[in-house]
């Protein structure tokens, strides 16, 4: 009963979100995100309204789950594209950071799977989903850190999408980790919290995407890009001075 109520509320919110997206022309600005919402909405309607035999339902569930997951990964790339479109330097940093993260994750996966014979047959769909969700989470974390560190201004819409998606993926990772160690099972309290976290995410998205708000345009009165080396050298000198100042004050 509770799960059906949460499911139904989720469908209503998804429909509302899609309708507001069309009205406010947000679909054109965030096409992948709204494709994701549209896909989840259609799959929810399909699963909610039709009665499938358990075996077909299982296949259908994992199929929609993985298409949703792939679309979710593309949503993360859309965050990067929209947030950093006017900041090529920060975009370059983010690409390097993401590359490092993915290389580390890939190396760790290769090392772990190489020691397990026939790992592909032993791996459950939940484990594969868990690994992909962790990658998404790391990508969200690195983007958020860069946005904070470089003081990148972002509008209400993008902030809402990022916060909502971050919340949803975080809770997914915790729940999937609990599933992996056998703590969380179907129809347990954890399965309800997962559905509930998605509902909260939808509320966050609906509030933040109710109307269009453009991303602030950065101040153009800053030095030209060819002055980067000069700026970096000046910062280096100033930090060096600060160190000397600290040493001089304390050590004299």
């Amino acid at each position, binding site marked *: 009963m509770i799960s059906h109520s949460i499911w139904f509320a989720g469908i209503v919110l998804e429909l509302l979100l899609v309708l507001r997206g069309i009205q406010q022309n947000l679909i054109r600005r965030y096409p992948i995100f709204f494709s994701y919402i549209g896909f989840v909405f259609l799959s929810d309607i399909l699963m909610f309204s039709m009665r499938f035999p358990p075996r077909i339902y299982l296949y259908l569930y994992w199929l929609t789950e993985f298409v949703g997951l792939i679309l979710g990964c593309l949503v993360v790339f859309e965050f990067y594209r929209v947030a950093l479109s*006017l900041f*090529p*330097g*920060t975009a370059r*940093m983010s690409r*390097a950071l993401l590359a490092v993260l993915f290389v580390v994750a890939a190396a760790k996966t290769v090392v772990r799977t190489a020691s397990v014979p026939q790992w592909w047959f032993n791996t459950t769909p*939940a*484990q594969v989903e*868990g*690994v992909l969700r*962790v990658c998404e*989470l*790391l990508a969200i*974390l690195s983007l*958020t850190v860069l*946005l*904070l560190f*470089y*003081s*990148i*201004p*972002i*509008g209400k819409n993008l*902030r809402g999408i*990022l*916060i909502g998606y*971050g*919340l949803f993926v*975080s809770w997914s*990772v*915790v729940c999937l*980790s*609990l599933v992996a160690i056998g703590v969380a099972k179907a129809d347990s309290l954890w399965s309800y919290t997962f559905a509930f976290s998605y509902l909260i995410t939808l509320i966050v998205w609906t509030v933040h995407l109710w109307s269009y708000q453009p991303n*602030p345009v*950065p*101040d153009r009165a*800053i*030095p030209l*890009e*060819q*002055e*980067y*080396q000069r*700026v*970096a050298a000046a*910062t*280096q*000198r*100033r*930090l060096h*001075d*600060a*160190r000397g*100042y*600290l040493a*001089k*004050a*304390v*050590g*004299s």
Partner: protein
Amino acid sequence: MISITLAILICCAVMLSLALLATRGSSVQRELAFRTDLPPYDESSGDPSLCPPEFAARIFSPADSTFVAAERSGELVRLFQHERRVVALVWVHQTKTAIHRIMREHTRLTRQSADLNLVTEAKLLSHYVQLLAICDLLILAIQAAGPARLGAVATYAASLSQSFADAQHALAITNAARDLRGASTAH
């Protein structure tokens, strides 16, 4: 799949950063808040938000502390130590703010640069983190020992390091002289 502890740690980090992003509020407000009343940095006069190093050095100098101790008034010594500790803490916080300001100015100026250098950025970040760590250590040390004793410890460390450098220099000269003597006797 990762362990539950690691999953919770990553989730906490994500939640914390997203909370910071949410509380940061409107980016326009942030941009406005950044425009301080302080004049821009001038290389000849240094950072305007910092007091002169001679004044700061006085805070950590044991001279005043020795003078007050000579008055043999417990109340006066306590009051002096309290005041000096507060001034020293304010000074460290002020320095830390100046360091934050330097880095914020840097990120604000370079975030749009297309030729941003990753190695340079990593070096600057490491320098910045080191300085913040020094400031935090100073805050802890001031709270634990007081500025006067800290100054004495720093002076002792500096003199020790100087003695070590002098000894190394003397050893290098001795070795060079020995090499020279060896070379001349070989001829």
